[in-house]
């Protein structure tokens, strides 16, 4: 045998392989544990990575400009004279955008088509199928969302408004907007030169310019110069790459950050599972460790052996789990990204990531085993030989039924028992969290409350009738809601909406605070992130607003909120200054209902007051596809976590039964029949599951939910609540699986000859 570190390593590996071969039938448990942990990790890593980086990947691929400026039609040369002189500018491209162009293809129609006429070299979109435009007038590139929704492919024809039919040559994707039909509009690109030739006309004005900064980190310099030199350019609106990301994230961010938060939770669960599994395994093999120590093995040798064995077991199991998890998550992830105009990662990038995870999992498994073995190896061998992980005198009392006996058997191995309960509790808590999230996703579709709006109905009634409305049973609060369209007085033409409530507006609308604080006085405003981005506002700056036919109003910005309405181009203020400037200002009453209120009764109550209620639509009315894809993703994650749960339960039963084959055989030799074994195993499983369920409730209620709420607080006001039904469901499923599993195990154990179990315990 070679000496030196390599020789030692080889000797350890050979020893480990030999040991594993001898225990072939018994490595199922650690293999299952590592596989379950890796499966969870594979799913959440793939989903979280793909969703968290989807925008950047698409932006990169599409060569998304740093700034997009829209303005009223202008002569191209006039605009270019100003744009050319901007600092930090690398490239620019002009477009002409036509809105409300009817589109038709394959018997389907859409009024809200948007045609962008382009000709510069840099496009700002990525061609994902077919080819890019050339200079022919009858060619079109359509956006991926439209192609998907209408099942169009390069080669098909599409009718573009008055221009008539065009041949689709390519499909493009640009993350500067979400995809059709999540966006109401669908985009079609045409060639400027081709169009000029086809129409036989001269050049036409431009209304959009894409700007690429030389140094992306200093886009703000470019932007402020552009604002400054805008001069007489009308209707100027800027969108920046970072702003776009904020906007896109406002729509999907809630779920994305939920997933990322969840990935974090699931990764901790997987780590816990790995650690507990390793400890479990080392505890199980204490007697063999004791013999090794007794015949002269050093603690280091024992630790190395356990570490090497754990790594050898973990390597294939982790690879299989991660690969399967990645494959399972890939489909739903891609479907969740598509409506956002974002791209799924390349398989190779994902493979590298998962390979990294693999190394991590194997190292973690080996380290956890080595750490547990280290502790064991430093106990006197005689102590290990006698009783392994049993310490001290067993609890007194020989009475009680068989179920109680089963519970005592499993609880006596304290370390193993505690790690099992912890793992099962963690898994169950995560499942509870997921159930809560799933119902949240459901309510997202029709309940605006989750996205910042807390009122459900509006009624056209004057402000002074609010007390009468509040008297209707089921109505919690009612207050007038004022909404006013205006433009920014500083960035001319930038539209925005002012929203005002008397008193605390968060009672009715509470978009999450991204920065600063809530408004407290008449002179203060909370502005949406979209508006802040467009006009260049931050906490402390002044919002100057020009309402129609009134004098300019000024507010101090005290907070930035993640409002979803009007792409976040809103500002919340108190109504006093608005009313002073516009005495005729009227608004309907916003009604906040009691939870579970009878809407029909409320409607009748309002009818008696002479008003017709109007329901507030979900803020994501058109995002059904996105929500469904995200829900599918969450379901998948829930499924894998349930798998982990089931595997933990199997582990518990293995501890109670297969692990204790000798004890079961001895019991059978004393006359215990299948019924008695069922009771015993049921008691053992219940001893694991019941405390785990209780711990799960505590974990979910006091740790996971608050943490998740905090993590997504930047996006939504999330009332994460586990319903009694969900808790009942979880406990029911657990109880059912205990019953089934103990019946099955008892049957299997009662079938084999008693002597088999006895001999195994002896050998």
């Amino acid at each position, binding site marked *: 045998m070679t000496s030196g570190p390599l020789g030692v390593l080889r000797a350890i590996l050979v020893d480990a392989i030999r040991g594993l071969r001898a225990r072939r039938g018994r490595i199922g448990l650690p293999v299952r544990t590592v596989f379950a942990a890796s499966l969870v990790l594979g799913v959440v890593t793939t989903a979280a990575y793909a969703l968290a980086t989807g925008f950047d990947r698409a932006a990169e691929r599409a060569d998304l400009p740093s700034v997009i400026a829209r303005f009223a039609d202008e002569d191209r040369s006039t605009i270019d004279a100003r744009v050319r002189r901007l600092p930090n500018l690398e490239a620019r491209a002009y477009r002409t955008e036509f809105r409300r162009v009817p589109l038709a293809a394959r018997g389907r129609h859409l009024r809200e088509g948007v045609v962008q006429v382009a000709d510069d070299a840099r496009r700002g979109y990525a061609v994902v199928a077919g080819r890019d435009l050339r200079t022919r007038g009858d060619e079109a590139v359509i956006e991926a969302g439209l192609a998907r929704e209408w099942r169009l492919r390069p080669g098909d024809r599409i009718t573009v408004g008055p221009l008539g039919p065009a041949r689709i040559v390519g499909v493009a994707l640009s993350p500067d907007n979400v995809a059709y039909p999540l966006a109401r509009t669908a985009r079609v690109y045409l060639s400027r030169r081709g169009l000029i030739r086809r129409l036989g006309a001269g050049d036409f004005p431009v209304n959009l310019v894409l700007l690429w900064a030389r140094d992306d980190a200093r886009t703000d310099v470019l932007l402020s110069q552009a604002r400054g030199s805008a001069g007489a350019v009308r209707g100027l609106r800027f969108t920046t790459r970072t702003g776009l990301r904020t906007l896109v994230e406002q729509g999907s961010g809630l779920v994305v950050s939920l997933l990322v938060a969840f990935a974090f939770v699931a990764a901790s669960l997987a780590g816990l599972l790995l650690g507990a599994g390793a400890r479990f395994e080392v505890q199980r093999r204490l007697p063999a460790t004791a013999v090794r120590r007794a015949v002269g093995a050093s603690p280091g040798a024992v630790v190395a052996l356990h570490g090497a064995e754990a790594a050898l077991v973990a390597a294939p199991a982790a690879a299989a789990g991660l690969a399967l998890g990645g494959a399972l998550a890939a489909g739903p992830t891609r479907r969740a990204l598509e409506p956002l105009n974002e791209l799924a990662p390349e398989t190779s990038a994902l493979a590298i990531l998962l390979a990294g995870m693999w190394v991590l999992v194997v190292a973690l498994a080996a380290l956890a085993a080595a750490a547990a073995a280290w502790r064991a190896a430093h106990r006197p061998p005689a102590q290990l030989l006698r009783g392994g992980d049993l310490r001290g005198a067993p609890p007194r009392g020989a009475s009680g039924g068989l179920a109680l006996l089963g519970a005592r058997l499993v609880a006596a191995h304290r370390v193993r028992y505690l790690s099992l309960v912890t793992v099962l509790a963690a898994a169950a808590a995560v499942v509870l969290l997921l159930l809560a999230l799933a119902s949240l996703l459901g309510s997202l579709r029709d309940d605006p409350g989750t996205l910042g709006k807390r009122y459900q109905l509006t009624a056209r009634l004057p402000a002074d009738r609010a007390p009468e409305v509040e008297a209707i049973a089921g109505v919690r609060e009612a207050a007038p809601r004022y909404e006013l369209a205006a433009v920014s007085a500083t960035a001319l033409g930038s539209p925005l909406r002012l929203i005002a409530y008397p008193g605390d507006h968060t009672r009715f609308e509470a978009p999450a605070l991204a920065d600063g604080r809530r408004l407290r006085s008449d002179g203060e405003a909370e502005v949406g992130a979209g508006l802040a981005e467009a006009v260049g506002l931050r906490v402390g700056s002044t919002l100057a607003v020009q309402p129609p036919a009134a004098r300019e109003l000024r507010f101090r910005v005290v907070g930035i909120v993640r409002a979803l309405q009007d792409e976040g181009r809103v500002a919340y203020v108190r109504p006093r200054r608005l009313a002073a400037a516009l005495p005729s200002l009227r608004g309907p009453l916003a009604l906040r209902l009691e939870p579970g209120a009878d809407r029909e009764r409320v409607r009748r109550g309002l009818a008696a007051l002479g008003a017709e209620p109007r329901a507030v639509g979900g803020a994501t009315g058109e995002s059904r596809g996105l929500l469904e894809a995200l829900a599918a993703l969450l379901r998948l994650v829930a499924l894998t976590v349930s798998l982990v749960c089931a595997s933990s339960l199997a582990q518990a039963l293995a501890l109670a039964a297969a692990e204790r084959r000798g004890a079961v055989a001895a019991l059978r030799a004393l006359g215990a029949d299948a019924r008695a074994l069922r009771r015993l195993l049921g008691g053992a499983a219940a001893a694991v599951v019941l405390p785990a369920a209780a711990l799960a409730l505590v974990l979910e209620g006091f740790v996971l939910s608050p943490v998740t709420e905090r993590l997504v607080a930047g996006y939504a006001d999330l009332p994460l609540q586990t319903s009694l039904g969900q808790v009942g469901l979880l406990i029911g499923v657990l109880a059912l699986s205990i019953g089934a599993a103990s019946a099955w195990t008892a049957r299997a154990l009662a079938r084999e000859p008693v*002597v088999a179990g006895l001999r195994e315990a002896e050998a």
Partner: protein
Amino acid sequence: MPLKLSATEPSITRVWPRWLAADTRSRGTIWSVGVVCAVARLTRVTRLRTAHQPSAPVLCASGLRKVYGEGRSARVLLDEVALAVAPGELVAVVGRSGSGKSTLLHLLGGLDHPDAGRVEVGGRPVTGASERELSALRRESIGFVFQFFHLLPELDGEANVLLPARLPGAPAGADRRGRALIDRLGLRSVARLAPHQLSGGEQQRFAIARALVADPLLVLADEPIGNLDAAAGSVVLDLLRSSADEGRAVVMVTHQAEATARADRVLRLEHGRLFPTHASGAAITDHAEPAPRPVSE
């Protein structure tokens, strides 16, 4: 039926089946064991405990065969083994290590299935019985002392002894008997300790107490004094002896001369068959060392 723990006078049944100790290799003996068993079957009543015929053997085994492995590597461990044990009889089985003594006891106790032959306990068939019937039989009629004790490590000594009493269908009075046995075997002071806190001999005595707690008709003891000093061993032997004297059938595997000296009959297991022997301990054991308690995972 309360267990009397004092040594009693030898019962008449002790002398009954000495003729059975003939050469088992002879067809005639096998045949006669078969006849005895058949007669016992004919005269049996459903529950031996309630209406026990003094002359009917408690244990009847005939034509027992056990083979390990298959094909060329097959090893015949037991072949045409016949044995009948009457109530009140204490039979010792000796033999080299690995000769199949434990295997034989497992077959007799219904813990393993023979490849051929049949076993009856108290007139009830063991071979071919359903798992349910076997459980009831083991619970009510058989007490087993394992060579390696098989105490549940999670329970203290007393709880281990009283374990059979916790099974559904356990006979009444088992608790009281168990406590009496613990006292008799001198285990009171260590009754609350877990097996890993007990010496080998203490574990062995707890295992013996557990085998007797349900007041079985048949006691099968695999090296019951293997780990005991002379004094403790003699207490256990007294106990087994008196158990037999009270009308139970006892089969004991042993290597020790003290044990064979207390037996009514000594049988020797060799080449898969049982031979009668009248020799003392020194002559019957080739390897008297008790098997070490194995350590494993």
